[in-house]
């Protein structure tokens, strides 16, 4: 079998470009220059690992993000030329030809390929809401996943369910970890995830032949270890107590913190405030809009994007903690007042010295 390096040379990549790529990879993974020769050696000696990229119920925003990676070297080298063997939206071949590649890789590289899933399988009506290659996507997904080495869940669809799983979820769309339970799944949530995050995750897995370190929810720590809020450039305004109150006020013009207009940065784990988007040009908060928390589980079912105290669906109505809590406290206060009134009335009828009712009747 060919190594990564052999494939690269065959594609016309010079040794110099190859080493540059290795050092770029080491840097983007936060590993330092010591790891550059290690990455190079790994690529020179290890047989290449194919990546299959399947699409379920989704909007292709993950792919759209991915092809705009600011580091074409990483994207083109690692995925287009080197390893991305199947991706039905990006590949030239279609129909039976494309399907043949899927079958070939799953047999030839059995147990040795990486499956990347964009979107998720709907389970209602035996999975008929999403058909790929004439079969329900859920069946195809299970078949390809069976012999995969590891699985990447691209985006919030594959990781959490996303918009198609929003209540009442008519197609019963579920995140892929609900149907694939026997394989390591690495979640790369976001709607879409950041392109550089996607390429770095694949690069890490290809070069080191292992999963990056994951957090409790299966997300790579290197990109989802901190909240947007922790590295937000507007954080000083938050600590100072300078908030945007409405979209056209003085605070909005001065770039104050968007906390009060519902920014979900304080509760969202992602790398937007450090890596940013479109070649590091900007990210939502920098553009003056709060974070909507698109990489968090259930962000689509939490009421308005512009509320600080968000809705509680468990109570069956549009309510937030203050409406419910305030009502309960109010009713309690009213009940206390009534009870106190009755107590006072009863007491007024009783003689304090003897405890005998004033009207003389027996108790």
């Amino acid at each position, binding site marked *: 079998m060919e190594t990564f390096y052999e494939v690269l040379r065959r594609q016309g990549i010079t040794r110099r470009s190859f080493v540059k790529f290795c050092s770029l990879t080491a840097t983007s993974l936060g590993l330092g220059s010591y790891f550059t020769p290690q990455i190079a050696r790994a690529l020179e000696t290890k047989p290449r690992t194919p990546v299959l990229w399947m699409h379920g119920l989704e909007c292709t925003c993950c792919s759209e993000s991915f092809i705009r990676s600011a580091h074409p070297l990483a994207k083109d080298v690692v995925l287009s030329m080197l390893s991305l063997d199947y991706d039905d939206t990006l590949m030239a071949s279609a129909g039976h030809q494309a399907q043949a590649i899927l079958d070939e890789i799953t047999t030839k590289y059995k147990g040795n390929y990486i499956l990347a899933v964009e979107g998720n399988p709907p389970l209602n009506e035996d999975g008929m809401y999403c058909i790929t290659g004439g079969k329900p996507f859920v069946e195809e997904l299970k078949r390809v996943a069976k012999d995969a080495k590891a699985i990447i869940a691209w985006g919030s669809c594959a990781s959490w369910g996303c918009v198609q799983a929003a209540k009442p979820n008519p197609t019963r769309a579920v995140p892929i970890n609900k149907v694939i339970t026997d394989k390591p799944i690495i979640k790369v949530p976001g709607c879409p995830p950041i392109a550089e995050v996607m390429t770095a995750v694949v690069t890490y897995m290809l070069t080191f032949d292992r999963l990056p370190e994951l957090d409790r929810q299966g997300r790579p720590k290197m990109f989802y270890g901190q*909240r947007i809020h922790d590295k937000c450039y507007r954080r000083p305004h938050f600590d*100072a107590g300078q908030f945007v109150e409405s979209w056209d006020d003085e605070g909005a013009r001065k770039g104050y913190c968007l906390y009060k207009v519902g920014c979900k940065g304080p509760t969202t784990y992602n790398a937007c405030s450090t890596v940013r988007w479109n070649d590091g040009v900007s990210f939502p908060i920098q553009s003056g809009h709060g974070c909507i928390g698109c990489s968090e589980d259930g962000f689509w079912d939490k009421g308005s994007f512009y509320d600080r105290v968000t809705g509680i669906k468990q109570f069956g109505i549009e309510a937030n*903690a203050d409406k419910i809590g305030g009502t*309960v406290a109010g009713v309690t206060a009213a009940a206390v007042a009534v009870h106190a009134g009755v107590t006072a009335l009863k007491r007024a009828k009783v003689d304090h010295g003897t405890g005998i009712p004033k009207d003389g009747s027996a108790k």
Partner: protein
Amino acid sequence: MLQNSLAADPNRDLKSIYVYAAPVRIWHWVMTAAMIVLVTTGLLIAYPPPAVGGEASEHFLFGYIRFAHFTAGYVLAISWLVRVYWAIVGNDYTRQLFLVPVWSRAWWSEFGNDLKTYAFLPSAKPLRYAGHNPMAQLAMFFMATLGSFFMIITGFAMYSEGAGRGSWQDKLFGWVIPLFGQSQDVHTWHHLCMWLIVMFTIVHLYMVVRQEITTKESILSTMIGGYRSFKD
């Protein structure tokens, strides 16, 4: 004797009983102060005051509000730790907040009597308690004890997000966040439980004042001096 009214033991001296030892009294008032700070600053965190002007570097208003909240949270958590310890080594009354004898028939019978008493039913017997009556005990267990524990656990879970992955707060409480779904859900439930504690406080204050005025048992002064006295 874990619970039960004093009627069960006619030989006891009913003039005054030492109920709340000093650690319990101190804990009570420390917790009261912490709760006042926590509710006030908590509401300010959910609904921050209007923006202050000038450069961000000149102010640290929201930082101080959050600092007060976190500090009061630590005080609350530590005071509960001490209180749990005291429940182990202290007198029988100290365990009432943690152990509700739901297995005891007598306890349930007195609970029913409490319901009748507070509903002004003539069939209610006038019972006396040195500690908490069963109804108060149940309310305190669910709202004060479990409510505080809920706030401490969810509070430290959210604090762990700022403290960072790998911090001791994260190791001890980080698991709470995926349990609720995500961080925003933890915020919502933390906020909701605040109202439960506010509700408890309203009823608690009412009951204490009512007891002090309408019965011959001391209650307000008991949490200051420690003795429950009966003015017979």
